[in-house]
């Protein structure tokens, strides 16, 4: 059996500049951190059972991976040439579509696990690339690479997306005092509204010519935001997030909506420095940076707005930053029986 875990991520600035339509014209940049919420993928070799089993929100058992409903598992198994004798399950700390990169995090854990299953120990970069290839090339999803890299590498990083499609990962080397101070000033709320990143990103992609200058500013704001983090100036970062969020909303009509705006405004009016919706837009999680003495007020104001909007699944999610990226936690797989 093989157990792999990969962390979800929070992206602070630059999200959206990781798609080829942008970074082939201007370097994309994202500042993000891995958090202590994980996706786990478990694989088990079943040489005596000629089936493929996949267990996630539902359970599928089929004779050949091409019959699977789960697109990523199907594509990954077919690509790896694994046709039967395998059980695969996934577990997660949070539901899907929260804007914390869960679907790409799943892909990162999946490709790491399948490689281990085939006797290959791939490194973080290889895992990020393999997951990106699975999603973007094999499945044609209109997404970027920031989530795959953020999850595979772990820690807080500035990711740079170059015109030759390479990605530079520069760790933001903050000590525990700065890290804990930032965590303490951060509030993350799950809105209870789920969305599919692809629909937002498709419109965003179509708008790219019109919005190129805005995206350039977003990419350029990353180094300023990085400097604020290194200095521990979270008020400045909160203000920058506020500006970034207002800029991002202009990229596609469906990035925000009235409900999300009402929650966001409530948080800022209650004393939050600023924040943003996490992920591509339309739903997911809302994150704020706020002074310590205003945290309780922000928490109440946002909860009240959520209540007024009838968001039944709304809740606060406690978050800590983590250094660990994608990792094999357990591997007792024996490589299977020798070919007869």
């Amino acid at each position, binding site marked *: 059996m093989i157990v792999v875990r990969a962390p979800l991520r929070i992206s602070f600035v630059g999200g959206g500049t990781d798609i080829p339509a942008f970074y082939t014209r201007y370097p994309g940049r994202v500042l993000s951190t891995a958090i202590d919420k994980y996706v786990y993928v478990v694989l088990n070799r079943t040489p005596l059972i000629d089936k493929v089993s996949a267990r996630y929100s539902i359970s599928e058992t089929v004779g050949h991976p091409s019959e699977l409903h789960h697109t990523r598992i199907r594509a990954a198994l077919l690509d790896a040439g694994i046709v039967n004798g395998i059980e695969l399950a996934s577990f997660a700390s949070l539901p899907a579509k929260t804007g914390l990169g869960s679907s790409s995090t799943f892909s990162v854990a999946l490709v790491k696990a399948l490689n281990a299953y085939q006797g290959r*120990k791939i490194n973080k970069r290889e895992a990020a690339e393999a997951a990106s290839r699975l999603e973007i090339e094999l499945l044609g999803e209109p997404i970027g690479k920031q989530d795959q890299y953020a999850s595979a590498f772990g*820690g807080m990083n500035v990711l740079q997306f170059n015109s030759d499609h390479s990605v530079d990962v520069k760790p933001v*080397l903050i000590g525990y*005092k700065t890290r*804990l101070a930032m965590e303490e000033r951060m509030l993350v709320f799950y809105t209870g509204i789920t969305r599919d990143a692809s629909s937002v990103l498709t419109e965003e992609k179509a708008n790219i010519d019109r919005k190129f200058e805005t995206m350039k500013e977003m990419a350029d704001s990353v180094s300023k935001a990085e400097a604020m983090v290194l200095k521990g100036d979270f008020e400045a970062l909160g203000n920058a997030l506020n500006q970034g969020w207002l800029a991002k909303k202009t990229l596609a009509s469906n990035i925000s909506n009235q409900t999300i705006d009402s929650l966001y405004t409530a948080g800022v009016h209650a004393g939050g420095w600023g924040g943003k919706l996490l992920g591509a837009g339309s739903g997911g999680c809302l994150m704020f940076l706020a002074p310590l003495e205003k945290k309780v007020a922000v928490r109440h104001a946002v909860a009240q707005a959520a209540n007024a909007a009838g968001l039944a699944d709304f809740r606060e999610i406690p978050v800590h930053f983590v*250094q660990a990226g994608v990792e*094999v936690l357990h*591997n007792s797989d024996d490589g299977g029986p020798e070919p007869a």
Partner: protein
Amino acid sequence: MREFISEFSEKVQETLQHLPVEEIAKAINILQACYERDGRIYVFGNGGSLAIATHWVSDINKTIFSHHLSAHSHRFQAVRLPSTESEITAWANDVGYDMIFAGPLQNYIQDSDVVIAISSSGNSLNITKAVELARKNNVPVIGLSGFDGGRLNELADAKILVKTETGQYEVVESAHGTIMHLITKYFKDYFDHIIENRAQ
């Protein structure tokens, strides 16, 4: 005598003023990630470096958590390699001296682990063999080297090179001792902070 003492301490001070800050920060991150996944840390070196390795294992496992020994969900798991004298002599006598670290490391190594290799020259064959094994397994390597860094500095993920003229073992090992204590103190303060703030 006075002159000798000040010359030596000046040399050590100079190397300490030029420590590779970013690489030490990377090493701290590697250890932090290892703690989060409850992996193990294997530390080794030859001669004086083996003494530093032994000292460090004790600091990582015990000193870091000293102020609140039972308050943590788990503690670091560091192991000095080889962990017994019998293994050193068995590998050296039966297989060869260049296998005294790589041999025992092969018994333990798992994906979630970390290796700390200490070598002033960075070129001791037994060190580089073990580091190559770690790399083959994609296990992160923290390399503490001296002089021009040698092969260890090329292979390590966190390249902690104390740059000196070749042969300045005493200076290099003194700086390595300081780096060991610096990293120990970072985590000691960090874990103290976590526990003491939780109690409030």
